[in-house]
């Protein structure tokens, strides 16, 4: 479970990107995070894994409050899939990339190997094992990036625009795949149809604050609400 209480995040240049945001996400719950460009989605996700530090408010994961000493503990529980897979895949070979997290957890090589294998098979990308990430398609990279997080056995996964760069077929594949995964998750996305299919609940952001938090169906079909958040294109 992730509980966020009244956090505010300001960038060093003074930009107030997040203002007094609170919400909770329960285990196994699937939540979409929707908002116009610059609404603060990425900033919010980065603060959940302690890459950015809120200047007020608290974040806790499974009852552990995020702070310097608990950083590793929190990151073990919350896996973040970055917006751009190229940022996540940096090892020469995919299997090394997937093994990277488990190795950092100090697991033995046998267990690391197990984790890699099960992540690969769970996502159905066993054939990518020894490949270089430089040679993969965008869709393959996306799935591989998810595998690098899955191998850490997180309880919660957060995604930053997972359908970006995907063609319709890969996008469909991703939707299928996400609905199979049991993890609680928060997914920042501009893809309303995707949110509708994958996430029963939606948090709507506007200018760094939460504008609405409720059932996806009720929010994204409401032209007035979507318009007010600067998202013209309702379903």
């Amino acid at each position, binding site marked *: 479970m992730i509980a966020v209480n009244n956090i505010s995040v300001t960038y060093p240049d003074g930009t107030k990107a997040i203002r007094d945001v609170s919400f909770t996400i329960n285990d196994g719950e699937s939540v979409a995070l929707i908002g116009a460009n610059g609404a603060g989605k990425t900033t919010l996700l980065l603060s959940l*894994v302690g890459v950015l530090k809120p200047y007020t408010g608290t974040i806790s994961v499974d009852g552990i409050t995020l702070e310097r000493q608990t950083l590793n503990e929190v990151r073990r529980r919350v896996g973040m899939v970055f917006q751009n897979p190229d940022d996540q895949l*940096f090892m020469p*070979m995919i299997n090394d990339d997937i093994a990277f997290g488990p190795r950092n957890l100090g697991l033995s090589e046998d267990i690391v190997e197990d984790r890699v294998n099960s992540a690969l098979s769970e996502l159905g990308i066993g054939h990518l094992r020894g490949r270089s990430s430089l040679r993969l398609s965008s869709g393959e990279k996306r799935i591989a990036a998810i595998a690098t997080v899955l191998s850490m056995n997180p309880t919660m996964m957060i995604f930053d625009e997972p359908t970006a760069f995907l063609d319709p077929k890969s996008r469909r594949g991703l939707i299928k795949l996400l609905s199979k995964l049991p993890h609680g998750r928060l997914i920042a996305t501009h893809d309303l149809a995707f949110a509708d299919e994958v996430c029963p609940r939606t948090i709507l952001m506007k200018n760094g604050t939460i504008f609405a938090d409720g059932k996806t169906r009720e929010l994204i079909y409401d032209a007035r609400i979507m318009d007010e958040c600067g998202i013209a294109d309702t379903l």
Partner: protein
Amino acid sequence: MANIRSKTQDIYSLEQLSSKSSRVHALHPMVKLISTLLFVVIIVSFNRYEFVRLIPFVFYPVILMALSETPWSIMLRRAALALPFALLAGISNILFDTDTAFVIGYLPVSFGLVSFISILFRTFLCVAAVLILVAVTPFNQLTNQLRRLHAPDIFVTLFEMIYRYIGVLLDEASAMYTAYILRSTEHKGLQMRHMGSFAGQLLIRSYDRAERVYNAMKCRGYNSLASRSKVIPLTGSDIFYLAAVSLPVILLRVFDINKLFTAVF
């Protein structure tokens, strides 16, 4: 420059071989590291006019390449990258060391030429040994062994970082270059007057990118100081390999095998 992407793949192409499974791949990484270090140290320890005595050392790359099924084409291409440096280092010897060493027929051969050839050959042997090591040992195992040998952590981390970021840098460069070329149809290649801003942009962009990559690494528990790894036990074949490589190498260093032969026959 247009094919930077394929160059990037080239950088890691040797390492991709490291996930193969041959007898050599299965050996303990420490054994491979130590035997490579020994080989390099011994090659370097020969005096600068030595050439003939170095020839038998070719056994090392030849046998290892065969055992590990590493393709010569990839290896030679990578070894060729070191050639310009060796040429540069050797050329001054030809120019300054002009005393005659010996005469072949009527042709005087200078000490400079001998040491030039020796430098080239020694460079080839050392580079080949290191490349084979990289081709048969996964990178993270190598750096772990370096740590266990008490190499300063900061150097090992730096080494890991450079190795990984070089891909990031080249990737960024190739994306920028492609975008540039597509918008400058009448010119071929990067123009001189755009060089400065291109380099500046590249620096900033790869810095940004490196930062994001680093964030993603941290999110997966990366902490350079706490690189823990299980201790892999040595086996009989590891010991055998170490002996099989280091004995001939040391013997060839101590005894002049060519002299022995001429003495016998």
